[in-house]
């Protein structure tokens, strides 16, 4: 069972209006979609999630689940399941009792409840831990218990608040993969909060990028990466971030991996002179720091040369680099939002 989740004109203020945690957000999540909420710390991701869950009431605007307004309804009737960043397992209950707990309001016989809980535990591979208390579990096991508790009563919506942030890097990668496959299997509409862009790019059907309580862009990971709606998204996503070069009241942007020695740029391109300062070697790639001239004002940029590009690049020297003209993005210098392309002198390569 999966449903749509929608928020419209949602505003949430704290402290009598001093803090605007969510500032007029409109967002429609499709049935069975895996939406990732991405944004820097303090941008209102958790607040948005809690408002959808019913733990916070909106200051104004609506939350719709399955097409009907649920403002003012308590969490339990919204049929949402939430995994907290801290997992919030009940410390005095065993793993089994933790997983059974959400089933109690449904008037099922005890045995049926337990067999459902065992099914959920098996699905997540924690069926051998059922008699333990949460404090006897590792971080990864706790996360799985929290997930099992969330899915056991087949909720309409999953809300996950940075569920992987307590895990180490290696476990996080495998847990991310597991989570995605699990969601595809059950097909439940999922909202996943993170401030880790790698997680967002890897997991999301769509990504919603937030900043200071506002929704900046909503789209496919590829779309958000390739066609950022504004300079915030352009520089928040991608590491190293998109290069921005001022030119005639506009900012010309291009990703570091598209700034290459001229011989490697195919199609129509703009030529620049790249004064190299410094080179970093990172997992096979070369990150080249320097200044470009010839595209607009002189500006500091970063180029990312993949391992396949073996041209010599020497710090302290100027090199002939180029960017494919289709890879250029344009933003208003004042507003920061996307604008129409402006003319740049191009050459065929």
């Amino acid at each position, binding site marked *: 069972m999966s449903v749509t989740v929608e928020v419209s004109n949602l505003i949430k203020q704290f402290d009598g209006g001093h803090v605007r945690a969510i500032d007029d957000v409109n967002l429609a999540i499709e049935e069975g979609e895996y939406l990732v909420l991405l944004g820097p710390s303090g941008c209102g991701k958790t607040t948005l999630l809690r408002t959808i*869950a019913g*733990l916070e009431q909106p200051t104004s605007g609506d939350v719709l689940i399955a097409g009907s307004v649920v403002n003012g309804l*308590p*969490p*339990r009737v919204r049929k*949402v*399941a*939430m995994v*907290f960043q*801290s997992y*919030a397992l*009940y*410390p*005095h*209950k065993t793993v089994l009792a933790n997983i059974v*707990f*959400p089933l*109690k*309001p449904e008037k099922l016989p005890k045995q049926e409840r337990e067999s459902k809980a065992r099914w959920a535990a098996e699905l997540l591979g924690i069926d051998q831990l059922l008699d333990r*208390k949460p*404090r006897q579990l590792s971080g990864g096991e706790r996360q799985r218990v929290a997930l099992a*508790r969330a899915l056991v*009563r087949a909720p309409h919506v999953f809300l996950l608040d940075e569920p992987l942030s307590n895990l180490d890097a290696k476990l996080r990668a495998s847990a991310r993969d597991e989570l995605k496959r699990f969601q595809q299997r059950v097909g439940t509409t999922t909202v996943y909060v993170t401030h880790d862009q790698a997680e967002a790019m890897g997991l999301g059907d769509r990504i919603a990028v937030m900043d200071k309580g506002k929704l900046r862009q909503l789209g496919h990971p590829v779309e958000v990466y390739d066609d950022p709606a504004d300079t915030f998204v352009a520089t928040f996503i991608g590491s190293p971030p998109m290069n921005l070069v001022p030119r005639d009241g506009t900012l010309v942007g291009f990703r570091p991996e598209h700034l290459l020695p001229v011989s490697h740029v195919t199609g129509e391109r703009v030529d620049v002179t790249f004064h190299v300062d410094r080179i970093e070697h990172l997992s096979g790639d070369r990150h080249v720091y320097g200044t470009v001239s010839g595209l607009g004002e002189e500006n500091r940029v970063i180029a990312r040369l993949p391992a396949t590009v073996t041209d010599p690049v020497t710090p302290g020297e100027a090199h002939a680099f180029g960017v494919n003209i289709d890879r250029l993005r344009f933003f208003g210098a004042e507003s920061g939002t996307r604008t129409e392309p402006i003319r740049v002198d191009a050459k065929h390569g």
Partner: protein
Amino acid sequence: MAELVRDAPRRQELDGTRRRLADRDGFLAWIFLVPTVVYIIVLVAIPFFLAIAFAFSDVTAGNPSYDWVGLENFSRVFDDPVFWQALRNTFVFTAISMVLIVVFGKVLAMVLVADFRGKWLVRFLVLLPWTTPVALSSITWLWLLHSIYSPIDWVLRNVGLIEDNSYFLGKPALAMGSVIAVHVWRLVPLAAVIMMVGILSIPDDLIEASRIDGAGFWRRLFEITIPLTFPLIAVAALFGAIFTFTDMAVVYVLTGGGPTNSTHVLASWSFVRGIGGGDIGQGAVIALFLFPLLLAAAILILRSVRKMETI
């Protein structure tokens, strides 16, 4: 390491020894324990053994010379029906008071943590009984429960619930009830504050998780709040029970043990016999009777707390 210290200049060696003295946990533990040990010996152990000694003697207020009389005091105490009445009263008083205190304390604690307008006033009023000296508040209660001028009677009469005055302190059952009521009124604020601390110590996300999991008020109360605060409640209840068990203030001020010795508890009976009546031997026997009961209660509750494995 030792060689290094020996080779080092003199001042460093001094520093080194001093640090090592402060590092010795066992030594420090003893220093910190000394005041407690002295306190316990002077104010607990000595009176305790003195009481045991008196229990086997014919010491009275008028004749303090010590003569061994064996078990005579014990047989005299046990032959007295007032003692058995007081013993029964002590249990009834403690059990009923503690149940009421825990229940009302819990309810009040939840009122205290709730968020509403003017809660500082409610919190202040709730804590008032605890801050009032019991002798003072009992006098107010004496008036409230007065045989002729009781305002409670007046209200009940005017509402039409009773015909005649209740004589709260004049009938044994009502008098015992009044004693319990005043004692509960006195201890509930403290219980509420202790339980409030317990409730506040539960992480918010656990409460929120239980709301998401569809638990209503009662399920949340019985499956989350109470289990998580149980060790605190148990320890507080233990102290409350011991305090109640040995307390005589309310009985003494409100009824003086009357009517006809029907509301005495062990502590007040021991006081009346030993200090009021001057028969120190009998007073000691009655007071000693509290000891095994308290010991059993303490062991019982501490054990149940230890058995609870939480967090």
